[in-house]
């Protein structure tokens, strides 16, 4: 059976007005001809969408960097470095993430001070374990997850 002619018939495209309306709904805030002229507006819209897609990934990176910057400042206030804080908390099996830690450093300073002490002690304990000496007055407790 000859089917090619049937396949040349397509469904009608959307009305030109509606197609352009979609673009202008997305570009109503742009400047000048980028707002009102379709040929220019569609390019601006596509650029904007590309920047937004890239920005969504970059925002996550930027925000994490800001948490780390803030934790660096907060741990310096307590006489620790950021690396010691993170490694010490990891050794003490405290699994609080950087987002919550930086929030605590700003809004719950006493809690953060206690966490810094935990990190300081467990970081020191790691070295003591390597050298074979136990610090006095320290009670270590390891949590096992089954």
């Amino acid at each position, binding site marked *: 059976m000859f089917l090619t002619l049937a396949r040349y018939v397509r469904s009608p495209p959307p009305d030109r007005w509606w197609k352009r309306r979609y673009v202008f709904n997305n570009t109503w805030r742009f400047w000048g001809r980028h707002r009102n002229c379709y040929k220019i507006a569609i390019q601006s819209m596509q650029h904007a969408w590309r920047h937004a897609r890239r920005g969504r990934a970059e925002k996550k990176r930027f925000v994490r960097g*800001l948490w780390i*910057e*803030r*934790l*660096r*400042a*907060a741990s*310096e*206030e307590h006489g620790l470095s950021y690396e010691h804080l993170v490694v010490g908390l990891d050794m003490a099996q405290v699994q609080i993430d950087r987002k919550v830690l*930086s929030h605590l*450093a*700003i809004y719950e300073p006493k809690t953060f001070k206690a966490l810094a002490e935990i990190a300081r002690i467990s970081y020191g304990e790691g070295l003591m374990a390597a050298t074979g000496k136990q610090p006095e007055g320290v009670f270590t407790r390891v949590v096992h997850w089954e």
Partner: protein
Amino acid sequence: MASRVQQHWLTFSRMWLLCDARWQPTPELAKRICKYLEGRHKPVYHPLTDCGDHVVVINTKEVAFDKNQWEKKLYAVNTGYKDTMIAMSAKDFHRMDPTKVIEREVYSELPKNSQRQNLMTRLHLFPDENIPDNIKENLVDIIPPVMEPPKRLDEFTEEEKASWPRFFIPPADYKPAD
């Protein structure tokens, strides 16, 4: 705290910090001053909030450079005459104006954005320890030094000299070969 508003004002208030540049290595000192000017020493830091502090640097004429940097490092100086830019060694530049070396170093360490000029106006440099009274009133805290200044041999006490660890103690009749 009486209210949240007061707590907010106190958290974001701009502090005045003192820095002693006596015998401090210049590039490391500049990085430390930048950190305090930008506000990176605060847990509430954000690049968009203007949370940096004022930094008052004293004894800038006694700042230190490593090795032979005083002779080797060159600064571009505008003489004011047309088409002439002079490369001055750090020694001559420091002799010309004792505060300019630290000013140039901090300017090059700051992030290269529109905040830079603004932050430079919050840096106050003095060649010795004479500070105007209106700035002295504002000072709140001291920036910890980059390096403790080294002591001369005659500044050590006899006990310290005797208890200093030695590699080996030679016998009484030891004579070094000439």
